[in-house]
């Protein structure tokens, strides 16, 4: 008498009706040897399921958290850069519309100069492309803090510039200067790291 092979017993455990298994099913119903083998197969699977769960020797959460924060930081700088460009474009439009034909005074020149510097620094950061680089935890932390502060300044700038006639407001100039200072620091953080690891 030919008993069922292991692969046939395995196929009989699958849901559905595979062609050619009707005979095998009939044989199994009548054969105590194959029934015992099928039971051993089920027991082996049950014992596999009952194996104790293996646990990591140490939590990987600190590493995962660091990766998540570094990723968020990279996303923030992208948004900060876009917001900076949008703000600069908005300001330029307002200037064109409201001050067309007017003589630029000292405050105008000062704010134009700071905005140009801000734009230059953003380009430096974009060309460094922090998204494409692996960042260590300490760098990511400092960069993240700087980006958070840049985002705060951007929000203040948005609010300040929504109000009419605030472009020449000393507070707006001060915010732009603050933004440039933070961007400068961010460039330093990235470039110092790049020089240390030979990028």
């Amino acid at each position, binding site marked *: 008498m030919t008993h069922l092979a292991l692969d046939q017993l395995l196929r009989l455990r699958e849901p559905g009706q595979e062609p050619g298994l009707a005979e095998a099913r009939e044989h199994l119903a009548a054969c105590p040897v194959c029934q015992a083998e099928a039971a051993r197969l089920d027991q082996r699977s049950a014992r596999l399921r009952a194996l104790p769960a293996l646990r990591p020797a140490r*939590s990987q959460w600190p590493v995962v958290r660091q990766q998540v924060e570094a990723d968020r930081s990279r996303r923030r700088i992208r948004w900060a850069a876009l917001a900076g460009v949008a703000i600069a474009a908005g300001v330029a439009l307002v200037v064109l519309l409201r001050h067309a034909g007017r003589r630029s005074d000292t405050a105008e020149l000062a704010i134009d100069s700071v905005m140009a510097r801000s734009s230059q620094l953003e380009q430096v950061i974009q060309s460094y492309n922090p998204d494409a680089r692996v960042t260590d935890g300490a760098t990511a932390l400092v960069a993240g803090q700087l980006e958070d502060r840049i985002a705060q300044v951007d929000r203040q700038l948005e609010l300040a510039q929504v109000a009419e006639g605030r472009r020449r407001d000393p507070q707006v100039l001060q915010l732009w200067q603050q933004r440039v200072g933070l961007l400068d620091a961010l460039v330093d953080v990235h470039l110092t790291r790049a020089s240390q690891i030979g990028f």
Partner: protein
Amino acid sequence: MADALVLTEADVILARARAGDVSALEQLYRAYEVPVYNLARRICRTVEDAEDVLQETFFEVFRSIHQYRGSGSLWGWVRTIAASKALMRLRRNKYRDADELDEEFHQPTATRSDGGLRMDLEAALERLPETSRAVVWLHDVEGYTHEEIASLMGKTVSFSKSQLARAHTRLRRWLGEETALA
């Protein structure tokens, strides 16, 4: 494994995680750390690979958390990411399938006590070739169908079935359960 988080709790944690709450992410990590690591460790050859898969899985979970729509169980979603990462690592490492040599030189011995059998089963599972081990674990323990395994591995359903049969043939032999069957 039953889902470690009850539905209402999971909904609240997910909402907080989507809003960027790091403590919610940590709760998700704590809830699924062990089952994800266990799955990774059963599939990967080394502890280091399993730890890497654990990290990659949760990083992916947190990055994709907005894409989870709650159509299946949260654990099912996390588990599929973990299985995919573990299988990707297997492919990347291209471990040598030393099955024939292992069969000859590393046959675990079977004993009768439950403790002894469990130890032997662990050893036998560990000695299976990576692909067979991954298939038997995903099918018999995690409950994936052959269609799902084939999809995860980028192989055919027949491949998954034949790997499962190979795995059971070896386990049966190594555990001393062979009979006079064909």
